[in-house]
C-alpha cells in the first residue's frame, strides 16, 4: 500500500469549550489548526473523516464548516477507536486514488451540554431490565473478572490513575493536576464495584484533528512527516454480555496486525497512548498488545513503570483519566503520538483506541523518518524468521471463534 504520513496535528478546547461553541465548531477549530500546522488550507482537503455521538452527520458538518465539497468522506463510527480506523481508511483511500489530503477531525461539548445529551447509550433490551449503568458497569464487570482470574488488585488499578496524574502534572493544559496517591484512589467514592470515581475518565469538552497525505507529498510540506507504520482494527461484540472473554479484547487482533505490518514488536515502541476510559483499560491493552503476558498487566504498571520516570511512557499527557476526555478520546491520543515523534525523539509511538464496552479496538503505529527507513530491513528480518502477518494472531482469532460460537 502507498505509504502515508501525518503532516498536521492539533487539539482545541480540551477541557471546557468557549460558551456558544457547538461540537461542530470545536471540531472545525481543531481542523483549521491542524491544517495550519501542515501549512495547508481547507481548499487542499479532498478527503474528510469524522464521527461523533453528538454529530451523526459529522463529515457533512465538517465539510460545511470548512466550506469544502470533498471527493471522499467516511463517517465510520466505532466509538473511541473511530479515529484510528479513520487513519486506516484514509490511507486506503489515498492508495486507491480516492483522495490526496485526508482530514480526520473530532469535536465534543459533552461537559458543557451534559453527557446525557452528548453521549446517548444504545440500549440493549436484553441487558436493560437489570439496569446496568453504562459504560462504567460493563468495565466494572470486566475488571471484576480480571481481578478474579489473574489476581489483579485495586492498588494496581490505582497505580494507573496515579501514573496518569503524574504525567498530567507536567501538562499545563490538564484538567486534573492535584497530587493523587494510591490511597486517594482507593478511598474515592465507589461507582460500580470494583471501580471508584478515580478509576473513571474525566468528562470534558475538546476537539482534535490530524491531516494525512502520501509520503511523497508529505515530504514537500513544512513539518517533518510522521509516518504511519502500521494500522489495524477489530471488533468483537456490541454489548458486554456478548464479549467472548471479558479479560481479552480484540486488541490482540488489531495489535498483532499493526505490528506485523510495521515489522515491529512491542519492544520497539518508545511510547504508548492506550485508551484509558477506566483504569482497567491500559492494563488490558498492555497485555493484549503484547507488552506483557495476559494477566501480568497489574504487576506491570507498578513502581511507576508507565509514569514519567518509567521504562514505558504511557498516556503522556495524563490521558483520559487526568488530562481530558471529550467523549470519544481516540484523536487526542493520535495527536499526542505525533507530538512524541516530533518533539520527544520517539522513533515509534503507538496509539490504541477503544470504543463501546471494550467492543472495538484499533491500533496505529507512528514513526520517525528513521523508523520509516528501517521498514524494508524489518520486513526482511521478518521473512527470515518465517513470520507471517497473521502468525501470532491466529491463536487469538481461533479463541474468538470458539467464544463466539457459545454466545
Amino acid at each position, binding site marked *: 500500500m502507498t505509504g502515508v504520513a501525518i503532516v498536521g496535528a492539533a487539539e482545541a478546547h480540551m477541557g471546557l469549550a468557549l460558551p456558544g461553541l457547538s461540537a461542530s465548531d470545536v471540531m472545525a477549530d481543531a481542523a483549521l489548526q491542524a491544517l495550519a500546522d501542515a501549512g495547508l488550507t481547507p481548499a487542499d482537503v479532498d478527503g474528510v473523516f469524522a464521527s461523533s455521538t453528538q454529530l451523526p452527520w459529522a463529515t457533512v458538518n465538517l465539510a460545511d464548516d470548512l466550506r469544502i465539497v470533498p471527493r471522499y468522506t467516511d463517517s465510520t463510527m466505532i466509538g473511541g477507536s473511530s479515529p484510528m480506523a479513520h487513519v486506516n481508511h484514509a490511507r486506503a483511500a489515498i492508495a486507491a486514488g480516492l483522495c490526496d489530503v485526508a482530514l480526520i477531525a473530532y469535536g465534543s461539548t459533552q461537559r458543557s451540554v451534559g453527557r446525557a445529551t452528548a453521549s446517548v447509550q444504545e440500549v440493549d433490551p436484553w441487558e436493560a431490565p437489570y439496569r446496568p449503568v453504562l459504560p462504567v458497569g460493563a468495565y466494572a*464487570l470486566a475488571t471484576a473478572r480480571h481481578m478474579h482470574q489473574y489476581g489483579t488488585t485495586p492498588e494496581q488499578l490505582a497505580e494507573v490513575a496515579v501514573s496518569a496524574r503524574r504525567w498530567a502534572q507536567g501538562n499545563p493544559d490538564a484538567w486534573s493536576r492535584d497530587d493523587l496517591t494510591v490511597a486517594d484512589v482507593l478511598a474515592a467514592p465507589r461507582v460500580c*464495584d470494583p471501580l471508584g470515581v478515580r478509576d473513571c475518565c474525566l468528562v470534558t469538552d475538546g476537539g482534535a484533528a490530524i491531516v494525512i497525505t502520501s509520503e511523497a507529498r508529505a515530504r514537500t510540506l513544512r513539518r517533518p512527516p510522521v509516518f504511519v507504520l502500521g494500522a489495524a482494527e477489530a471488533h468483537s461484540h456490541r454489548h458486554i454480555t456478548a464479549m467472548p472473554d471479558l479479560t481479552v479484547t480484540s486488541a490482540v487482533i488489531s495489535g498483532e496486525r499493526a505490528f506485523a505490518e510495521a515489522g515491529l514488536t512491542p519492544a520497539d515502541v518508545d511510547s504508548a497512548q492506550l485508551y484509558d476510559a477506566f483504569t482497567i483499560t491500559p492494563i488490558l491493552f498492555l497485555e493484549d498488545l503484547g507488552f506483557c503476558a495476559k494477566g501480568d498487566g497489574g504487576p506491570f504498571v507498578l513502581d511507576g513503570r508507565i509514569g514519567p520516570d518509567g521504562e514505558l511512557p504511557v498516556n503522556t499527557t495524563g490521558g483520559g483519566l487526568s488530562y481530558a476526555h471529550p467523549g470519544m478520546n481516540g484523536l487526542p491520543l493520535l495527536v499526542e503520538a505525533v507530538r512524541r515523534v516530533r518533539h520527544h525523539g520517539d522513533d515509534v509511538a503507538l496509539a490504541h483506541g477503544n470504543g463501546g464496552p471494550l467492543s472495538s479496538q484499533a491500533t496505529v503505529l507512528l514513526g520517525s523518518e528513521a523508523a520509516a527507513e528501517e521498514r524494508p530491513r524489518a520486513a526482511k528480518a521478518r521473512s527470515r524468521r518465517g513470520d507471517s502477518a497473521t502468525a501470532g494472531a491466529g491463536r487469538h482469532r481461533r479463541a474468538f471463534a470458539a467464544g463466539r460460537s457459545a454466545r
Partner: protein
Amino acid sequence: MERSPADVYAEHCRQRELAYQVDLDGRPIFRPRVGYDTWRISAGRGTVYSTSVVRPRNGTPYGVVLIDLDEGFRMMSRVVGVAPEDVTIGLRVRLAWEDGDGPEAPPLPVFEVDA
C-alpha cells in the same frame, strides 16, 4: 419470519421458561438473534461469571451479574435473596422469576443462590 426472536423469547418467559437458540451444530446462542429457528429450554442452572455492585449517588446499591448457564450461554441478570456484595464469581445459581416491569411485560429471569 413469522415472529420476532424477542416475541418467542417473551412467550417462553410467560411460561416461566428460559429459552435460548442453538445453531445448526447445536451450539447455544444468546441473546436471541434473527436467523436461528431452533429453540431450547434451559435447565436454569449456572455460575456467576462476573459481578458488580452499582452504587447510585442517591439510591440503594444493587447488583448486576453475568451468568454462564450450564448449557453454555451467557446472560446478564441479578442474583436475588442475597446482598449484592455477597455475590461472588463462581457462585452456583438457579433460575428464579420476578414480575415484569408493568402489566404487559413478561416475567423477568433472575437467579438465586443454588444451595
